[in-house]
């Protein structure tokens, strides 16, 4: 997936779990939990939804690496290259 597709997938996962979020209002450089009303159960569900949309599984320990939208996209892009069949 391209970086743009990954970004759309993350936003789609976020609004699937918390449709009260206005995607246009997300600052991609600020922590998601800081600017949005999402709790840790929401975040867990977002990770599950990201997996469903991208096929990328995020281990528990790496959750902090998805703190901001930009970080999440960067993490998924890197994970995608690592796991890509050679």
């Amino acid at each position, binding site marked *: 997936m391209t970086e743009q597709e990954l970004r759309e997938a993350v936003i789609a996962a976020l609004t699937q779990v918390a449709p*009260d979020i206005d995607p246009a209002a997300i600052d991609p450089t600020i922590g998601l939990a800081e600017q949005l009303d*999402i709790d840790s*159960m929401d975040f867990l569900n977002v990770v599950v939804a990201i997996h469903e949309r991208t096929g990328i599984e995020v281990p*528990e320990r790496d959750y902090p690496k998805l703190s901001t939208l930009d970080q999440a996209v960067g993490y998924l892009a890197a994970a995608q290259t690592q796991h890509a069949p050679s």
Partner: protein
Amino acid sequence: MATGAVGHNVGLAQIALTQRERHMTAFTGQHAAEPIHKGPASGLAPNLEDYDLARSQFSWASARAELAGLPGDALNIAYEAVDRQADGPLADTVALRFLDLGGVAAELTYAQLKRATSRFAGVLEQLGVARGERVFVLAGRIPELYVAALGTLRHGSVFCPLFSAFGPEPIEQRLRLGDARVLVTTVTLYTRRVAGLRPRLPGLAHVLLIGSDAEIEALPGTDDLRALMDRAPDHREPAATAPEDMACLHFTSGTTGEPKGAVHVHEAVVGHRATGRMVLDLHPGDIFWCTADPGWVTGTSYGIIAPLTIGATCVVDEAELAVDRWYGILQDQHVTVWYTAPTALRMLMRAGAEVAHEYDLSALRFVASVGEPLNPEVVHWGQEAFGLPVHDNWWQTETGGIMIANYRSMDVRPGSMGRPLPGVEADVCRRDADDKPLLATDGSLELASEGEQGELVLRPGWPSMFRAYLGDPVRYSERFVGGWYLTGDLVRRDADGYFWFIGRGNDVIKSSGHLIGPFEVESALLEHEAIGEAGVIGKPDPVAGEIVKAFVLLNPGFEPDEELRRDILAFSRRRLGAAVAPREIDFVDVVPRNRSGKIMRRVLKARELGLPEGDLSTMEPGS
């Protein structure tokens, strides 16, 4: 996605099933949950060395005598928690250490905490707040929350915490029911959730904000907390409150009606300190981490009061759970006693015990858990991950403090909540078909025999017991029958006196340790134009224990599609906040009701779980 806007993948669902199965077999006792035997304690001797001996020797009068008290039989929680240490050898010991994503964010020694809480009490005095009036705090785990809590108690007014993930509706309801005079909150939370409510809250005289000068100046009807604190005097004597004076107001939810404000008094500190010693095994100088948010009773009784009365250092993490950060905190802060919750432990468990082994957790002496029943595998996992079992305990908002527990010196039976606290008499009573307690002819409760399922009941009289539901004497008196307090939880007791949780005796939902009343959620849903009827249940979840799930019947003219589902989800999240709003919504053709019109949530739940629906003879035909 067909299963709902918020669905788990197959892997999670499978975990859910197996955990539930194990959970149920453990509860019924068919599964031999191997007891964990304790040898003699190494290192620091436990405060409670022998359960049976402690039980025979303990008295609340002697626990009361261990407190300092104030002249004229006065008793003030803040004095016991702060001054007593600040005026003694622990003055320069850190009372509260605040951590954020960047590390240590702030520290307050007992002496500093005494000055800060004096100043906050002075602010209330200057504002003309009267003793007994309610001071609400809506904030994350920041220093101001702790200073406001203890400063309020010092002043003699009443501390009432609001969970920071609440939406405007639960906030308004609680401010109104609690007759709030003062609200302490942040600029962000005020702007997002409270400003719009002000016209409907005429009794809310003062809003004290945390934020920058410019931000606060731009918000009419508010004051700058820091500016007021700066002008207040450094010392203010603690109010000479009577033991029965109201100290804290904690809202809790029932199956029906609005949330209830459980009234707690200054005498509760006797129970907080005694349980901090006997159950959490707290000693002066301990590094204690209670992960509960003070928005709920655990975060107040044990996140603030109990450890400070003993002279421990409290670690407070302002951020949310993250696996490596949490293990890092346990390691770097040398946490000795850790009080956490099943949801958190299950999240850590998902990352694997080997992650815990990467950290040096050797300072840890005791791990306890509360909030919902702890499944046996988590207890065993604790052994594997930390080298210590997790000690479950049981209590609720109304009891004010721990009532039944697994103790450091006592063998653990995984899956059991443990044995009653010394000084607390617990029993099990039989219930009739309507879930009411069965009474003998003389009006006394009919008690269950060994191993028989019934409702957990407690003999009133422990110091931290609630004294009222604010303004609701009827619902208060309904909790007492035949000389016992009815907890609403179903349990059984084994031959050795260990209590085992079976289920809740009502429809209240426990999600991530938060108590949620289905009625409050249903009421909010009914305000959506598309919804004609709504029934809300707790759906078992492998991590959160339960999640809030709503079944809605649409008004004519509305199509049950994904767009509407999202709209309802967004609507309820904006009103109720993430912690309370449903995470799943199903459209149904009928919301089952009995002949008197009451929503039959157990039928919804049985259908959700694919279980037999039980006796439906009282159900309205067509449901």
